[in-house]
């Protein structure tokens, strides 16, 4: 039996962290994924890989397709979609709608994507009673500036500074409607990093589905399974062990479901891990009650936002948030290593 591997700029990379890795594996309808051995061992399809960067992270897409032209076309489409959305949601691209919103405090005539995602963001704010808050960007700025400028000061920013910035964090002060998005307070800033990856995952999934690519596992920061594995089984997705992010500790089956994981381990400001990017919006400090939270639900946007919301909420609030959101399974790893499963 023969197995051919066609490569488009394919390079071997070391195992990337799943949160940062952007991977799409899919197959045209009816074709099994290359590299997946069936019982008979007969399956073979060409494997095409693209590597690049998206939303500031390394990204790759892998796709099995009978023809090189077909694969290139679809990868081009998917990359173009990622680029298009990146140009809207990026914090760092000066021309992005988000950057304009943060600069001016208002944005008139938001695009459909910006409008939809901001509406979702505010909705998750209210579902989670403010645990998920896209207006935490000033906090992130405060912390990153603090740790950049005071490398030795491990205590974090002064309480006074935090208190001043926390006043700017309130999703209810964001007006979203088709005419404009308005930040009600001077100095407010938005980050969509807690939800845009999920949204992009959803949009690329829809695009692939519209182009006849079924049975896909799309992993653009968050993971969404379209349909089943080409073999008919559910997709199997391994979750990182939150206490040792270099290993995986459990697998879940996904069929037409998305999973998102939040953990502070990705972006510690300090070596002790007491300060990271997931803030409790009300207190202005990094949330430490969980090591990791994974949320499984149909849409990646929802999974992305809820995993953050539950991560920064007190553990006893998690049930209520999951119940409000509905159709959610959440896997929580508490700070002491205990695990909880919530279904709602």
């Amino acid at each position, binding site marked *: *039996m*023969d*197995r051919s*591997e066609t490569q488009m700029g*394919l390079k*071997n*990379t*070391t*195992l990337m962290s799943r949160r940062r890795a952007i*991977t799409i*594996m899919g197959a045209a309808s009816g074709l099994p*994924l290359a*590299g997946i*051995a069936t*019982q008979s*061992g007969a399956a073979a399809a060409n*494997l095409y890989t693209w590597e690049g960067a998206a939303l500031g992270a390394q990204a*790759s897409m*892998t796709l099995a397709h009978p023809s090189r032209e077909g694969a290139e076309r679809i990868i081009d489409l998917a990359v173009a979609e990622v680029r298009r959305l990146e140009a809207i949601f990026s914090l760092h691209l000066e021309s992005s709608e988000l950057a304009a919103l943060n600069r*001016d405090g*208002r944005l*008139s*005539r938001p695009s*459909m994507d910006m*409008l939809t995602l901001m*509406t979702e963001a505010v*909705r998750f704010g209210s*579902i989670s009673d403010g645990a998920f808050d896209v207006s935490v960007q000033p906090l992130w700025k405060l912390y990153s500036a603090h740790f950049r400028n005071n490398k030795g000061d491990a205590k974090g920013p002064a309480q006074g500074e935090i208190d001043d910035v926390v006043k700017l964090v*309130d999703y*209810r*002060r964001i*007006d979203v*409607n*088709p*005419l*404009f998005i*308005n930040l009600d307070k001077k100095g407010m800033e938005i980050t969509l990093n807690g939800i845009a990856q999920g949204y992009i995952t959803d949009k690329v999934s829809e695009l692939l589905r519209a182009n006849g690519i079924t049975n896909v*596992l799309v992993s653009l920061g968050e993971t969404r399974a379209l349909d089943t594995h080409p073999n008919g089984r*559910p*997709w*199997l*997705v*391994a979750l990182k062990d939150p206490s040792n992010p270099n*290993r*995986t*500790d*459990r*697998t*879940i*089956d996904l*069929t*037409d*479901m998305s999973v998102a994981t939040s953990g502070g381990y990705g972006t510690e400001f300090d070596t002790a891990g007491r300060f990271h990017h997931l803030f409790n919006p009300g207190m202005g400090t990094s949330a430490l009650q969980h090591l990791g939270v994974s949320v*499984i*639900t*149909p*849409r990646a946007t929802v999974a992305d936002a809820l995993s953050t919301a539950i991560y920064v909420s007190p553990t006893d609030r998690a049930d209520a948030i999951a119940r409000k959101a509905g*159709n959610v*399974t959440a896997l929580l790893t508490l700070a002491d290593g205990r695990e909880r*499963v919530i279904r709602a």
Partner: protein
Amino acid sequence: MVVGGIFGGRVMPANLVLRAMRNIAVGLVMAVAGTLFTVPAAQANWVDDVKDLLTPEFLAQVWPGEEITLGEPEGRPLAIPVFVDGEQVGYLISTKQVGNYGGYAGSPFDVVAGFTNTGQVTGAAMLLSHSEPIIGHGVPQSRLERYLAQLNTVHIWNRYTAALQPNVTQGATISAGLMRDAVILGARVVIRTRGDVYVGPPTVDRTGFEALAWEDLISGGSMVRLSLTNRDVAEAFALAGYNEARPDIPLGEDPDGTFLEFFAALATPASIGQNILRQKEYENFSREFADQMFILAGVGEYDFKGEAYRHAANQKRFDRVQIVQNGNVIYFHGDQYKYKGRLETGQGREGKVLNQAGVFGVDDPLFDPLAPFMIQVLVHGTADDAAITIPFEVAYQLPARHILGLEEEEMAMGALSSSDARPIWVQAWIDQQIDVAVLAVALIILTIMLIKQDAISRHRYAYKFIRLGFLAFTLGWLGWYANAQLSMINVLVYLQAPFRDLAWTSYMVEPLIVIVAGYTVFSLFIWGRSLFCGWLCPFGALQEFLARIAKLFRIPQFQVSRETHKKLWPLKYVVFAALVPLAFFSPEVMVGAVEVEPFKTAITSHFQNRGFWFVVYAVAVLAVGLVMERAYCRFLCPLGAGLAAAGRFNLVRFLKRKPECGTPEGETAGGCHLCEVSCEFQAIEPSGRIDESECFYCLDCQVEYFDDQRCPPLAVERKRRERGLPPKSAQAPGRKTFPGGLVPQPAE
């Protein structure tokens, strides 16, 4: 080691392990027999031989970092349990062994890999024996070793990890890929069959095997039985409701004789299929009927298979047996049928021989093997020269022991309804379904109240109670709780909608606003703008409550002259007219300009967390309202102006008037001015006409209208009635009775 393994959560009896090992031994012998000239003889006894090769140094490669001890090799595919501190934590497998199991045996290497019970590969290395010189194959051994060393990053369930494409091993790519696949596939099978984890939606257990005798299958519900005597069939035909109904096949003489003894089972689960069929048969059939398969068997006078399935004219369907599930008929087909010959229901003398047996594949997407269904045996006959069919049926529900994932905690993930990735606006409506229902009920009550306005206006105090009650709802629930304050922003958003290429769904994400807006548009045609302003505007309600309180505390009320009123009310239209173009040409400016509405401060933000001047403005507006009721609504509110402009076209006027109301046309004084004075909003002109654009539909004028203590014409009628005089209106209909004019004080 523990004798026996864990089998789908149940302890597997030791004899089954032995049976499995026997199977492997047989398989090994056969494999060796076929490849004797290429494989050294030492491989034949891998189980024994391999132990000598698993040196501590080697084990450190495949299971680094922990002190492990090995159990006895066991199971199918063969795996060696790994123990750490006496606890079984994982397995070692050999690609040679799982490769044989998995179907490829071409790789010349034997790779041993370790993995944990949860599926994390711990390491992999080539097992080198003196009898297998690897150099001879011309493959760069070091590259292969480097590749294998990376396998410890693999999680066996995590196949989408693109990091481990074996293209580092130039010259041995295919071998490397096969090894990786053998490790992953073998490890999966080992975990699926022996591990205590199955994570996923419920599915038919095709691997977990448990020895069950025929009686066990029957008593556990794995197999069902249908026994029909000749009498049963004759009675069924007799009761079918036809004259002279009889089966096409003549029934036997003996009424107690067996017409058909029928057995049916879903054969897909290993613990059913492999207990009825021989293992090899089960595996062959499983491959052939990839979806689901049944075993149907019978004995008796009736051949349940019939002949129809042989003929294309019948679409090769079996016409004497079928499945019914959820109202769908699932047919068995001749193309998916394998003759099985005979089956015995038990050992020795107790066993009954079933001489008609077959294996039937089912790949109908409508069929759900986990859900209950009926298996029907059909007996065809004639009645009144027409064909009839009598079904005999037996219910089947696959027992839970054959379903993987049902008892597992993680199963609930499968219970999540899939494919309902709802769009956000649908989600919003579902989220707020209770609020939507409350609002809908409130609007229905409001509509009924206004239809019955004459009836409730007759009762001054009841009416006051009803109105204040509804306004309390509007302010407290609709405004402060649900934040469903319709504002200029909504109007402008809707106005510019035709010129934007946003999906209509963008306008649906706030259910309560959509409903209030929709109801308001509807009401414009019937009641004009006044319905929203007077009943559904939370800020309006707030002003009205404050005015009531002001009057309670006897704060002097101030009323502008009619001339000033006429100069002031157009102001709100100016504000409206200024805002509309901003929506189209400069939304940035509009964001600030709509702050002329104090709604956000007073209603949606509860006066909190807003800039100082916004609060000052809102308080100032409300303060003016304390001395002049609804001053904001009357003179400034652009939303009210917009609605009033649109409400010009309302079709009907419900507010009742009398001929006596107001100064008659062509005169400069006279007529009744009771309502005019009682209207706080100066919406009633001296002529008696109600200016609907300025009206808030508070119904105060209607309360006066029906009050026979206060409305002069009614009071006159009442007094005449009390004196026993005939109604004056009978004498002089339509005559104005108050030529001198009459201006009473408004009622409290």
